[in-house]
């Protein structure tokens, strides 16, 4: 195909070959055309690299030396491993939806527990039905448009779920969305899920990525939210068990109607390369979006948080609040862009990123940006980087608390105020536990 001529790196040419192979197997569906278009868009630019402002600090072209083969459908052994992992967890409070190696597993999902007014379908089924509405939504490129990894995601998406909440449905318990990487050889995983929240409906989505094989994987995951008027979404994203060789790109796309609320939290404590990017648009007035996160980096890990919040409608409020702890030779990135369109008067947008260094070898890049085209707005940003307070450390040590434990106490407190924003008690406790575990590991 023509796009191949634009390819530059071995990984990029391999992606081209993989896509051609995949396309040969696909039936003639509207989505197949969408995939091809998406791949063209990707191929025109190739993997994102440091000369693109949005990827300046996370040079995927350099990091992705090889493009791993798309994961095969999981066999009995893979499914059993994922089941065992799930069984070891506390019983879910709500519905559990499970993807293994990119494929939706209805039988491992607790579909019988779906509350009235909540529907779950497999992404591939929805694409196969060929409704242009669904395919357009799923291939949504208008949000985060031009984002190469999102285009690549649309081209390769192997599976996912389409979760629909009818008008006014309030789901009290969190819905767990698990994505397992279980393969026994290095693979690429590409998933895309959609959460459509009807007017006045509300839900908490607990997005969890779990790596079981301790093997290198390349994950490219997208989660698309569409909130109708008055809807409310809580979202928490976590990654567990990924080795230092793992690469994870996770994209959240959210379009918010009028009077909606979107509250997202991300815990990034993975040893490999992780990029979590969110693109949110306020399409209707009087809505609120909050992004919070805690990023814990050590050794050579790389954690990138990139957000683009676009205020198209007036009277909306956006908040970003990120806490990063950097040890070893790790690299942290926070890029927050708030765009205020000409009509979006009375926009209130604030970004805050705070980082603490525990080692001299670590680096943190903060890049908050405002693009304001309206005159009656309140927007602000702040970024701090520093070390733990010496007076506080000495005070604790003078009471007999060893240095690392004293650091942990202070770091715990540092992370805690971002976690406080998570609505569900049980999940908040788990997040606190994960932070404590990370701190204990460095204490020992």
């Amino acid at each position, binding site marked *: 195909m023509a796009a191949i001529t634009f390819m530059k790196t071995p990984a990029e040419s391999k992606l081209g070959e993989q896509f051609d192979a995949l396309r040969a197997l696909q039936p003639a569906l509207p989505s197949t055309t969408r995939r091809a278009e998406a791949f063209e868009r990707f191929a025109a630019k190739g993997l994102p690299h440091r000369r693109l402002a949005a990827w300046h600090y996370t040079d995927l072209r350099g990091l992705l030396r090889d493009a791993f083969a798309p994961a095969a459908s999981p066999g009995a052994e893979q499914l059993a491993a994922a089941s065992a992992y799930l069984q070891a967890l506390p019983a879910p409070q709500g519905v559990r939806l499970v993807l293994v190696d990119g494929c939706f597993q209805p039988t491992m999902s607790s579909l019988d527990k779906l509350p009235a007014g909540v529907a779950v379908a497999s992404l591939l089924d929805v694409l196969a039905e060929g409704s242009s509405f669904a395919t357009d939504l799923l291939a949504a490129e208008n949000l985060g448009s031009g984002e190469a990894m999102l285009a690549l995601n649309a081209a390769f998406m192997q599976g996912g779920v389409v979760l629909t909440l009818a008008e006014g449905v309030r789901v009290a318990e969190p819905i767990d969305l698990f994505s397992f990487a279980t393969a026994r050889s290095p693979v690429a995983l590409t998933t895309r899920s959609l959460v459509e929240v009807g007017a006045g409906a509300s839900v908490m989505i607990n997005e969890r990525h779990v790596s079981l094989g301790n093997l290198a994987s390349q994950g490219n995951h997208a989660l698309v939210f569409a909130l109708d008027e008055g809807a409310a979404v809580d979202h928490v994203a976590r990654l567990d068990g990924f080795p230092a060789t793992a690469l994870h790109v996770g994209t959240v796309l959210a379009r918010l109607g009028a009077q909606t609320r979107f509250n997202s939290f991300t815990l990034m404590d993975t040893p490999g390369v992780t990029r979590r990017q969110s693109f949110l648009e306020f399409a209707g007035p009087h809505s609120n979006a909050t992004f919070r996160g805690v990023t814990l980096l050590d050794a050579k890990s790389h954690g990138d948080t990139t957000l683009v919040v676009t205020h198209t409608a007036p009277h909306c409020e956006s908040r970003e609040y990120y806490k990063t702890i950097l040890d070893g030779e790790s690299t942290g990135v926070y890029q927050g862009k708030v765009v205020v369109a000409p009509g979006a008067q009375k926009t209130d947008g604030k970004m805050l990123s705070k980082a603490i260094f525990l080692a001299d070898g670590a680096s943190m890049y903060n890049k908050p940006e405002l693009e304001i085209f309206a005159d009656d707005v309140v927007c602000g940003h702040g970024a701090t980087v520093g070390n733990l307070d010496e007076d506080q450390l000495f*005070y604790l*040590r*003078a009471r007999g608390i060893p240095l690392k434990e004293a650091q942990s106490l202070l770091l715990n407190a540092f992370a805690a105020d971002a976690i406080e924003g998570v609505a569900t008690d049980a999940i908040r406790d788990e997040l606190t536990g994960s932070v404590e575990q990370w701190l204990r590991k460095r204490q020992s």
Partner: protein
Amino acid sequence: MLEVKNLHVEIDGKKILDGLNLTVRDGEVAAIMGPNGSGKSTLSYVIAGRSDYEVTEGEVLLDGENILEIEPEERAAKGIFLAFQYPVEIPGVATMTFLKASLNAQRKARGDADLSTPDFMRLVRAAAASLEVNPDMMKRPLNVGFSGGEKKRMEILQMALLEPRLGLLDETDSGLDIDALRIVANGVNALRAANRGFLVITHYQRLLDYIKPDVVHIMSKGRIIKTGTAELALELEKNGYRDYVADAA
């Protein structure tokens, strides 16, 4: 128990302690008085192990062992307790969490098991009651938003819990109202014991009416320039430092 021998301390190349000698005996309450900037807090920080001071000469011996080479937490475990002139606020760390971490860390360093939660709670409640500290304060972040007097009481509460070998009290009386002064002094007096010493830094004789010192030292320009009995503090209260400081110069 404590012997400070010919201690020379600098910060950023500036001499602050200049050949200081001082002894605190078992069971003794020693008071240190001296003009602002004479190095009293510096001495207490150096004994407790603060790292931004450079010890260029001398020793600090606790029961014969030089403690200058060991970390602040190790000194604490050996029984050094500094009640800070300015207790540090620690946002996000509940006072109770801190007290437990501190008590258990010291126990661990001495080879004792952690206290059970009920035992710990009992100790804290007793200490809080005797110092008339509102137990609700234990839930608040350590020292954050505490009044000046509340902070000082919390310092003494910690000392009561940790039962140190040597209590260094740096201007614990400043910021205390008349009632609080009495409560805190009673708290200190209750801890007086044959195997415990105190070094009480103060500007005012008033505190020494409550905590009767066995010995009073006058410090100036980084040295002890006079040592006497409680009478010395009374004299100072009347005449100020003029006579002594002039002698030293």
